[in-house]
């Protein structure tokens, strides 16, 4: 949002109001409940004791939580490191016009439209060495592949599944960014005799900056909150190898019914995402502006 030239108009608040009410009903009220729980020990609905920051201290010292957090961070950064470059490459290689572009667009988007638990279910069979295509193929190539027993295999399978599932989002956004570049830019580059890499580096990449920022943020948020796919595929196992934060939280909240600690955990979880998104957002904004100075 660039605000430099916008007229000041406080009545604009009335236009925001519907959104505010909707989100307040479905976000602020629940969030208040979470905050409320996080400082109480709920023995039964009638018996509650104020415990202050005790749950927060307890959660912060939880070794399993630290392990889940590290697993989550490694996973999210692996997701970004693979999906962003792959998505950009895909966007660059998709045809620009004609029926081919429509067909490729729809094929690429297909995996986004599959409900998350179906994604998990497909890969559950797909990866089985006895009856699944991927598993059988890997076995045929001589790998001793077994995602249910081997922690590393399980982790990589979840990652590959995510790449398959979500790279299209990056590709679609990048593709949209590319299509908006006027032909004049390419013509100018041709006259200058710019190399393909120079065209990418100084024209295409800066022009994709805005949409790529959305892509990076969305992918980061969503991979950090991943729940359904690994839950269906591996159930968090073997052992704890693919138990990410959301699943750990759900185990605590629903499984053990520890409302207080679960609420404290929720808040810490939320703050971590918020902090990381804020850092990413500001970092990308800086990188983007530095780029612009080089170009102009």
């Amino acid at each position, binding site marked *: 949002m660039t605000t430099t030239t916008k007229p000041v108009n406080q009545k604009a608040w009335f236009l925001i109001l519907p959104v505010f009410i909707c989100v307040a009903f479905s976000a602020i009220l629940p969030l208040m409940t979470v905050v409320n729980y996080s400082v109480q020990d709920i023995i039964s609905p009638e018996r509650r004791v104020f415990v202050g920051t005790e749950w927060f201290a307890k959660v912060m010292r939880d070794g399993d939580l630290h392990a889940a957090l590290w697993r989550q961070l490694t996973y999210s950064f692996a997701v970004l490191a693979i999906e962003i470059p792959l998505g950009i490459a895909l966007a660059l290689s998709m045809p620009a016009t004609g029926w081919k572009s429509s067909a490729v667009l729809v094929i690429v988007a297909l995996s986004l439209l599959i409900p998350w*638990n179906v994604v998990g279910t497909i890969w559950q069979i797909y990866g089985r060495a006895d009856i699944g295509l991927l598993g059988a193929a890997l076995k045929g190539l001589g790998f001793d592949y077994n995602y249910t027993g081997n922690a590393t295999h399980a982790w990589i399978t979840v990652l590959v599944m995510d790449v398959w599932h979500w790279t299209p989002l990056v590709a679609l956004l990048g593709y949209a960014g590319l299509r908006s570049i006027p032909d004049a830019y390419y013509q100018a580059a041709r006259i200058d005799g710019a190399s393909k890499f120079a065209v990418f580096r100084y024209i295409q990449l800066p022009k994709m900056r805005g949409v790529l920022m959305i892509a990076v943020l969305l992918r980061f948020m969503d991979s950090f909150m991943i729940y359904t796919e690994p839950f269906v595929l591996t159930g968090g196992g073997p052992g704890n190898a693919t138990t990410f934060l959301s699943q750990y939280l759900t185990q605590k909240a629903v499984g053990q019914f520890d409302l207080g600690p679960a609420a404290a955990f929720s808040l810490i979880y939320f703050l971590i995402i918020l902090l990381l998104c804020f850092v990413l957002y500001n970092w990308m904004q800086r990188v983007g502006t530095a780029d612009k100075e080089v170009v102009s």
Partner: protein
Amino acid sequence: MKKRHIFLAAYIVFALLPIYWMVNMSFKTNQEIVSSFTIFPQHFTFANYLTIFTDRSWYSGYINSLIYVAINTVISVSVALPAAYAFSRYSFLGDKHIFFWLLTNRMTPPAVFLLPFFQLYSTVGLMDTHLAVALAHLVFNVPLAVWILEGFMSGIPREIDETAYIDGYSFPRFFVTIFLPLIKAGVGVAAFFCFMFSWVELLLARTLTSVNAKPIVATMTRTVSASGMDWATLAAAGVLTIVPGAVVIWFVRHYIAKGFAMGRV
């Protein structure tokens, strides 16, 4: 063949193989799926699809899902439109903070909201209704819709608004008759994304429903746990869940390419 063609072809194979495997499974019998590895169905059968179309507990899942996804998409886009307009046209007290605050809701893991939602909707008596799921999904769809629409609107020059006001248009009339047609593409893209994220979400949809509004995603998980592993029906149901989304994307495919970039780049 250029390098990029080979790369694209390789990716398409990578993208389609798992989907092919599901389609393949949906035409097999359970026995064949579990006992042997076959590239093509040996005993080709439509029985799995027939089960879904004739069993009420299956097909009502699709209807329930479509209902709450439709309600959610309509609410999300219609509340997001005026808000996105305000963000793209005016500056006002706390505008940037509100914008970022909206985005933070997109960052909240649904797992965090699970229990509070359960209690909130129980209290107001909305449990197991389509409206409950539709409202719950607003948390992540409204911010996204505002975000997308704001991008589109910023691409429309402000002179258009000013000219319309000078010509004597009132704000509502200007918005509906002049502005809305200009950002049609944006509405299409925003609606597509709302549809998609609401359609594929499982955790909240499953928690907030039990019988009357049970979505197809939940029907699938429960069938698995109840009657052992009915892989074949599950695969057929999975294939059918792709269909509505594929139809929607076919209609907005031109906008997707054009639209996202306007104003955002």
